[in-house]
């Protein structure tokens, strides 16, 4: 290479701009996986700058003993090498840091490293100025010492260097350890004693031991037993961060809300440095706080020692019938539910072998799971929660669960297990809750069960009170049609199994002696226009239902088809007039008006043409079912005309019935229009709505 020096300088310039850019926009940085090995080379490369800087320092210290020209050459070349390896090590370190090192130590190490990199580059640029050069060189050396130490802390643990000495003081905590020692002291040690210790004792305060705390500082006592509000420590902590007096000072690690809550509760309890968790009463709020927020947090974190299954595997295991979900992004535990009785295949369960370590929750309710299938569940060794409601398992299936040492909650509702299952249940060591509603385990067995399983909460669920009787719902009509020909079958029904229905056809109230409904009633209208069926339901352990009443109407002559000239107001009454007038369903005045069961007319009249050209009967009466809104005082119909014709061209008026001033609203519900007999092929019914009224119709009969 002809000009090694400028080339070197260019490379350095490039790398430092690159580094500066990475530092400024660090939060946007995403390292592709193929670059991660580069980051992992950081621990290897960093030894070069460490050694080179040390060498530079030595070289400069002993420069007098070296030939000046050689010194210049070696020194400058070494400096360039130092700068190059420093910036490379720093960039690699930055890449490595994104793999998830989050700590104070990390950020110290990172910034020191970045600073060294730029200081060494400054050395290169300021090489001419000997004084600055030397200051910078020694600074960078100090940086290397500290940066190196923090870096070692990251890989080996922060107390790595002093561990052989400090380990002597390390304690194991249990429930008999004083709360002060187990919880309060570590908080003080982590957040306070870096300034308030025997060496530094800011504010004349030493928080490292009970005696010195009792002495207090220049502002008085640290805490006041039973009185957290007046305790100086908590007052200072509670001040706004900007306040001069706030502790720990802005920039230092602050106490978390959880820590403050604990200290507050402990002071409120009496700031007793001897009291332990075991000595606290169950209802004590301090004990509850520790149980809830400190103990639980630890155990939850610790309980899952297994690895993450990985998102790709989880994704693979999810299918429309199987939901496989990680408990939370930070937890490797997996929850599984399988759905769909008809689609179930045994593989849905056995596929889980791929995540058998991670599954902690499994819901198999309502699936055709039998004893054989359940064998597999025994392999899920970290399973905590199992739902088997309404599966096909029996007692022996539970044998498989004895291996599930982590199982805490087991739901067996609706299965065939009985008290003989106890021999397996006893051996599920960590079982805490058991659901046995609707199984073969009877009331009488519960006592034995709770005696044998003293630590298990047994939920037997709802047991109906034989004293309380409820009324059945009334029988229903099957099918919506209530317009029939005499002799047609009608069917009644009830939503509940085992109900007996009794009925009458003579409008009397049915009772337990009335005719029993079997499979249908052939309803003889006996020449009447309508017939009412009344029915009541009975069942043991239930009160009889209310009486339901269904009225059936004679079909009369059925036209081949009905056409209407105007379809009716379709916006609010959605029924199509032609269909409504001739379907086999008649509504009474109680049917909701604004619905598809009614056709309505206001400006344009009802004009319906019935075609009897095939059957050609002799007709002498038309009945039009109408509806007036409840409470209406005025007739909604002006008049009704009946016309007949053989060719739909020349119409003969048979009858005109004027109803504009009709005051009897009952008469308007069923309008009977009699006229001289006619056997023509077509009949036209014109219904003119009254002024400012809406006329509602729902059925048309011909007799």
């Amino acid at each position, binding site marked *: 290479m002809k000009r090694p*020096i*400028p080339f070197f*300088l*260019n490379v350095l*310039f*490039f*790398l*430092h*701009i*690159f*580094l500066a*850019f*990475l530092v400024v*926009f660090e939060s*946007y940085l*995403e*390292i*592709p996986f193929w670059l991660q090995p580069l980051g992992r080379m950081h621990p290897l490369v960093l030894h070069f700058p460490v050694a080179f800087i040390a060498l530079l320092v030595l070289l400069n210290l002993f420069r007098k003993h070296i030939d000046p020209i050689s010194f*210049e*050459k070696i020194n*400058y070349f070494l400096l360039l090498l130092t700068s190059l390896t420093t910036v490379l090590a720093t960039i690699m370190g930055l890449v490595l840091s994104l793999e998830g090192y989050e700590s104070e130590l990390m950020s110290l190490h990172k910034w020191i490293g970045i600073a060294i990199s730029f200081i060494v580059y400054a050395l290169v640029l300021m*090489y001419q100025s000997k004084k600055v050069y030397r200051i910078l060189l020694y600074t960078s050396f100090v940086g290397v010492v500290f940066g190196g130490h923090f870096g070692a802390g990251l890989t080996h643990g922060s107390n790595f260097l002093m561990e052989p000495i400090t380990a002597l003081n390390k304690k194991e905590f249990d429930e008999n350890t004083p709360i002060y020692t187990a919880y309060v002291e570590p908080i003080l040690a982590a957040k306070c004693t870096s300034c308030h210790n025997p060496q530094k004792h800011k504010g004349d305060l030493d928080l490292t031991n009970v005696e010195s705390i009792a002495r207090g500082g220049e502002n008085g006592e640290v805490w006041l037993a039973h009185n957290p509000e007046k305790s100086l420590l908590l007052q200072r902590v509670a001040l706004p961060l900007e306040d001069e007096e706030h502790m720990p000072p802005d920039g230092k690690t602050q106490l978390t809300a959880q820590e403050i809550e604990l200290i507050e509760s402990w002071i409120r309890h009496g700031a007793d440095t001897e009291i332990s968790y075991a000595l606290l009463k169950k209802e004590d709020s301090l004990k509850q706080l520790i149980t809830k927020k400190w103990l639980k947090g630890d155990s939850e974190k610790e309980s899952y020692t297994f690895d993450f299954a990985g998102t790709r595997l989880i994704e693979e295991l999810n*299918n*429309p*019938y199987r*939901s496989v*979900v990680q*408990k*939370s*992004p930070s*937890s490797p535990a997996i*929850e599984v*539910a399988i*759905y*769909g009785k*008809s*689609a179930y295949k045994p593989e849905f369960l056995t596929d889980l072998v791929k995540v058998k370590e991670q599954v902690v929750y499994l819901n198999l*309710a*309502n699936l055709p799971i039998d004893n054989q299938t359940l064998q597999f569940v025994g392999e899920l060794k970290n399973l905590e929660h199992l*739902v088997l*409601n309404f599966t096909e398992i029996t007692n022996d299936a539970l044998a498989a669960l004895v291996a599930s040492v982590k199982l805490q*909650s087991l*739901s067996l*509702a*609706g299965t065939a297990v009985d008290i003989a299952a106890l021999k397996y249940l006893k051996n599920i060591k960590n079982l805490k*809750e058991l*659901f046995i*509603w*609707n199984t073969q385990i009877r009331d009488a067995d519960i006592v034995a069960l709770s005696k044998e399983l003293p630590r298990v909460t047994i*939920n*037997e669920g*709802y*047991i*109906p009170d034989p004293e309380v009787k*409820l009324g059945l*719902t009334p029988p229903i009509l099957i099918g919506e049609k209530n317009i029939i020909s005499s002799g047609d079958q009608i069917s009644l029904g009830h*939503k*509940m*199994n*085992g109900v007996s229905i009794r009925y009458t056809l003579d409008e009397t109230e049915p009772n337990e002696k009335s005719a029993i409904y079997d499979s249908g009633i052939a309803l003889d209208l006996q020449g009447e226009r309508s017939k009412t069926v009344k029915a009541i339901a009975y069942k043991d352990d239930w009160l009889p239902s209310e009486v339901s009443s269904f009225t059936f109407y004679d079909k009369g002559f059925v036209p081949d088809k009905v056409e209407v000239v105007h379809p009716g107001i379709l916006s609010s009454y959605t029924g199509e007039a032609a269909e409504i007038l001739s379907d086999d369903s008649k509504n009474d005045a109680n049917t909701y008006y604004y619905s598809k069961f009614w056709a309505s007319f206001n400006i344009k009249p009802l004009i319906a043409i019935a075609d009897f050209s095939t059957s050609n009967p002799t007709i002498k009466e038309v009945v039009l079912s109408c509806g007036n809104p409840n409470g209406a005082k005025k007739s909604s119909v002006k008049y009704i005309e009946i016309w007949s014709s053989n060719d739909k061209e020349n119409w003969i008026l048979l009858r005109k019935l004027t109803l504009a001033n009709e005051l009897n609203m009952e008469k308007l519900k069923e309008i009977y229009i009699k006229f001289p007999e006619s056997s023509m092929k077509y009949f036209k019914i014109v219904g003119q709505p009254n002024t400012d009224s809406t006329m509602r119709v729902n059925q048309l009969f011909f007799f």
Partner: protein
Amino acid sequence: MEKEIFEHHLNANRRHFLGKMALGFGGVALGSLLMPDLLSGKEVAEDQLPLGLKHFAAKAKRIILLVQNGAPSQLESFDYKPKLNDMFGQDLPPSVRGDQKLTGMTAGQKSFPLVGSKFGFKQYGNSGTWVSDLFPNIAKITDDICVIKSMHTDAINHDPALTFMQTGAQVGNRPSIGSWFSYGLGSENKNLPAYCVLLSKGKGNGQGVYSKLWSNGFLDSSHQGVQLSASEDPILYLNNPNGMDRKTRRTMLDNLASLNQLGYDEFGDPEIPAKIKQYEMAFRMQTAVPEITDVSKEPDHIKKMYGPDCMVPGTYAANCLLARKLSESGVRFVQLYHQGWDQHSNLVGEMQGQAKDVDMASAALITDLKQRGLLDETLVIWSGEFGRTNYCQGKLTKDNYGRDHHPRCFSIFVAGGGVKAGISYGKTDELGYNITENPVHIHDLHATIMHLMGLDHEKMTYKHLGRRFRLTDVHGNVVKDLLA
């Protein structure tokens, strides 16, 4: 050496400067390759959670929201105020009312005569929770529920208040709470919609419910609530039309999918695969839905528990039973509405009927979940949209009265899913007008519900029209005291 360095500095001319800048830009460019989002104009996707992933471990997996539409009176249900009985007919002191705006219905009223509950109250369970005689079955499960007596809201009329409760905003066009969960957590059971809605109606004075209440707002329409009707076809148009069997449907869907695939290969529209997926889900729903809506196989005593009405489709009891079945089958969010709680007059008569409709089935739902071991993972919420006034609207007689809308306090209850059981939370003053302790705003309730479901209400956002929306807007605090 010196010479070389000297020369190097001499060479620092413009060309050299530009050349060096190029190197600098090279460094920047190389760096930017590692930062996909820096130059693309997108924000850091830090708070955008990948769908279907919780922020932290959840207490509850599913929610059943029992909306008592029309606003049941807290004074005849859970908030016992004997003082109101003592002060029968006396005027509400203006100092208590403060600056509370009134509705148009009572604003013109000359006096505001106080009236206490016509129905007795007793304490129940180990918790000693006060419950009125109207709710004897809920009274039996007080140790499983948490009554919040200090709910309050912003709106004083039904539609805005209900919209607020459903979407966190009084104006429309925001996603309903169920849609947010569908968006945030997805469906547990992929053969069913994540968000189902069931309607029923009591005989009391009713207020409308509209499909906007279960709308997906600006979220993808797949998050919309699916209303199940009371008819034989609970989900409209799900069944095959007459003459088409399942095999034919399968062939049709396969052919349709390959046509769609052609379209996708050509245009790359991501909506196309979404559509193929929706067709497949509908196909699976054809078998999944009848399995769930068939209640005939329920044991007889279940019917006794929910009440005989649970066999009559379209009743509140039937909907409660169906809600349990849906929830048990992994439907993330089931929402019931029961209309008829708007007792401006004839409160005594109407409330008895309404309470009879819901008391037994609401309690049964909670007991039923509990006995299946599902209550711990299912959050049940029973709530109206606001409360009712402590004074009478209209004519006050010894036997009957009415109550107007009151947003300042109302009572709800929640159960299961990581909520403390057997407590009463919050207090109102002795006249039941203002909250005196632990107020819980609708936003706070939303934040708490989300927390229980493993979501941070401040982090789950959706960007729309240039800003990020949250269910809780810019408000809401998780009510830690309620968490078990």
